[in-house]
């Protein structure tokens, strides 16, 4: 039996062993509570957390004071959306309107929709069939006073990179804040929030070869994005996110950010090459498939394919050694067509056939070749009749 090939890098990434190594001392001798800053144990942990914060800030062109540690991008998204919307509703001019795009991550949609209970108006904006935010719809929707717009940097299923810069200019001009769920994009493509009108951005460590259980929210200082915490306590992270900071996880996250900053560019070239090679091999073997979402302006490590006449679940059954998925990881236990593909108005057949294939840092050419061959035979009717 051949060993499994992991091609699900948008669900989660293996940890980079350098990031893992960086964490170890904080699980051993340097176990202090990073808020116990009056003694050496705490100071060591605190210094390491602050160094990590600096590395994450550098990766996104931010100031380290703009980084708030959270338990992951889901919490960051919840904090950004509920926190900013509530701040303006309660402490500002009372505007209660939030805009999100139809293909956002579930946690963005749920956070936004939950605000309806508090009397917010929540509008879900359409996306194009190529997989991009419909900016005309945004322009139109911003004619009404709006507190917050949430647009992801890159989609988690089809990898399309969104026009954040343009969206930021529109929202800024309309007096609204822009929140960006950047979980899939950070560490994969260059992102400089300082140069864009992005007010809030969510980052996840485990999507960029860091540990699970830690993430960050970028909170712009100038002009300052204001928000209310979703829960309180010891007042850590400038009062925005209470709870003892897990120093080891932050250190692993920081290390992953540093590695990404140094290697992102060459890695992206490599992944793009792999993606092209993968598609070429499939085509050469006569596989009939369609790529969902635009191939330009797309994360280099992402593919989303529908093979002709065969459901995604059947493909996965026929090729059990290839780790790919039908959609986002959290909802993949549920077997229903992807709402992301429905949002880009893919046909029912395409949506049911859609497979997300993700390449990453540990992927090799041998894996690309073997996976493409396996999938080509898993989707061809001749071979299944044999």
């Amino acid at each position, binding site marked *: 039996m051949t060993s499994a090939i992991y091609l699900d890098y948008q669900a989660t990434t293996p940890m980079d062993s350098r990031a893992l190594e960086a964490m170890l001392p904080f699980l051993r001798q340097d176990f202090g509570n990073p808020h116990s800053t009056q003694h050496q144990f705490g100071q060591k942990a605190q210094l390491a957390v602050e160094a990590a914060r600096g590395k994450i800030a550098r990766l996104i062109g931010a100031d380290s004071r703009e980084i708030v540690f959270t338990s992951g991008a889901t919490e960051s998204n919840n904090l950004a959306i509920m926190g900013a919307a509530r701040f303006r509703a309660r402490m500002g001019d009372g505007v209660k309107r939030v805009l999100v795009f139809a293909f956002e991550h579930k946690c963005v949609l*749920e*956070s936004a929709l939950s605000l309806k209970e508090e009397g917010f108006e929540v509008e879900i904006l359409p996306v194009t069939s190529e997989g991009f935010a419909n900016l005309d719809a945004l322009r139109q929707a911003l004619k009404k006073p709006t507190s917050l717009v949430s647009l992801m940097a890159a989609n988690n299923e089809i990898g399309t990179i969104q026009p954040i810069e343009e969206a930021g200019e529109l929202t800024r001009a309309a007096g609204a804040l822009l929140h960006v769920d950047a979980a899939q994009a950070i560490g994969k493509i260059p992102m400089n929030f300082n140069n864009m009108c992005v007010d809030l951005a969510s980052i996840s460590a485990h999507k960029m070869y860091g540990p699970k259980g830690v993430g960050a929210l970028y909170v712009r200082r100038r002009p300052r994005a204001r928000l209310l915490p979703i829960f309180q306590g010891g007042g850590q992270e400038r009062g925005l996110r209470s709870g003892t900071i897990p120093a080891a996880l932050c250190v692993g996250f920081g290390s992953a950010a540093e590695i990404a900053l140094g290697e992102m560019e060459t890695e992206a070239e490599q992944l793009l090459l792999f993606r092209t090679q993968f598609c070429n091999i499939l085509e050469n073997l006569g596989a009939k498939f369609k790529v969902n979402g635009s191939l330009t302006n797309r994360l280099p490590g992402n593919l989303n394919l529908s093979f002709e006449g065969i459901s995604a679940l059947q493909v996965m059954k026929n090729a059990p050694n290839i780790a790919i998925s039908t959609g986002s990881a959290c909802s993949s236990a549920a077997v229903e067509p992807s709402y992301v593909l429905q949002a880009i108005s893919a046909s029912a057949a395409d949506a049911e056939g859609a497979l997300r294939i993700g390449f990453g840092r540990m992927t090799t050419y041998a894996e690309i070749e073997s996976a493409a061959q396996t999938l080509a035979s898993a989707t061809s009717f001749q071979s299944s009749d044999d």
Partner: protein
Amino acid sequence: MTVYLDYNAAAPLSSGARAAMTAAMEHQANPSSVHKYGRYAHQVIEGTRASLANAVGARYEDITFTSSGTEACALILRLSNRRRLIVSAIEHSAVLGNAPGASFIPVKNNGQIDCDFLKHLLGKDASDAVVALMLANNETGVIQPVEEVADIVHSVGGLLAVDCAQAFGKLEIDIGSLGADAIALSASKIGGPLGVGAAVFRNGLSPKPMILGGGQERGIRGGTENVLGIAGFNGALTEISARLSSSEFVCDLRNRLEDSIRRIHPECFIAGTEAPRLSNTSAISMTGTRAETQVIAFDLAGFAVSAGAACSSGKVTSSHVLMAMGVSEEQASSTIRVSLGPETTQEEVDSFVRAWSDLYGKKVRNDVSGLD
């Protein structure tokens, strides 16, 4: 080598936790096991859930993992949609901060809450109320009469949420015999890693979720789980009975510490000694020397202690816990927290007493020369 006497802020990672995390790390760094990762992560999380259920006498499905004790505290306060919140005056900021508009239960001089006052606050019908009371205080170690309070609260239809973070691993916790409707826990207080907590709900109660999306933790708490941390939590749980049985030894050390200090300074104020206390915690005042000054001096002398709760150590304010007990401002601002653990030795305690004596001696000499 610094002597660590700040176990209530964070306990060193236990060997069981470290071993479990090392094993989990192999899986995190290996792409071919990441393939089976979903299944592996599921095993880790559900295995820990089972151990924790067993440790606190709860059902498996009663447990929700969170990112910290603070988050767990915030979550247990969201029990049902009850509007009236009643909290003790000495709760941790994780409870106080998440209870806006709450009524406060005062504490007596011994550090335990005033049950008569609570009855008065609850009134005849408390079916709209959630009461929050910590099992043991993080600053003084004073243990609250939670079982008694549970009866009081339930007799008028109220619900009881108990922050067990600091008591965890130091006292046996059985959610049923406590009579709590929900409890909050933190892995790091029992030798597990930072970044993992748990909220436990009884009788099918569930909170209004705080972090939405993804559907993890039966929809109560969204977000990809801290698998490494949860693995470490399980490792720490395997050692919890050893930790609990060390409390007698720790208590002897703590008594040795307090007796020695009392021999040096007989009038020395130690908080909560009239009430049952955690065996490891000592809140000791050196009247006239500010807590911050002491903590810095002890750090230089090679001892890690704290001036109250870790999260607020940045700010210099007198402890709300001591003030609620009726301790004078002067004494409260000169009280430090010394908290011991299973790894603490008699030599460490004795050397700390010598350092305490030195600092106290200097203060006395200064006071005397100041009179000249």
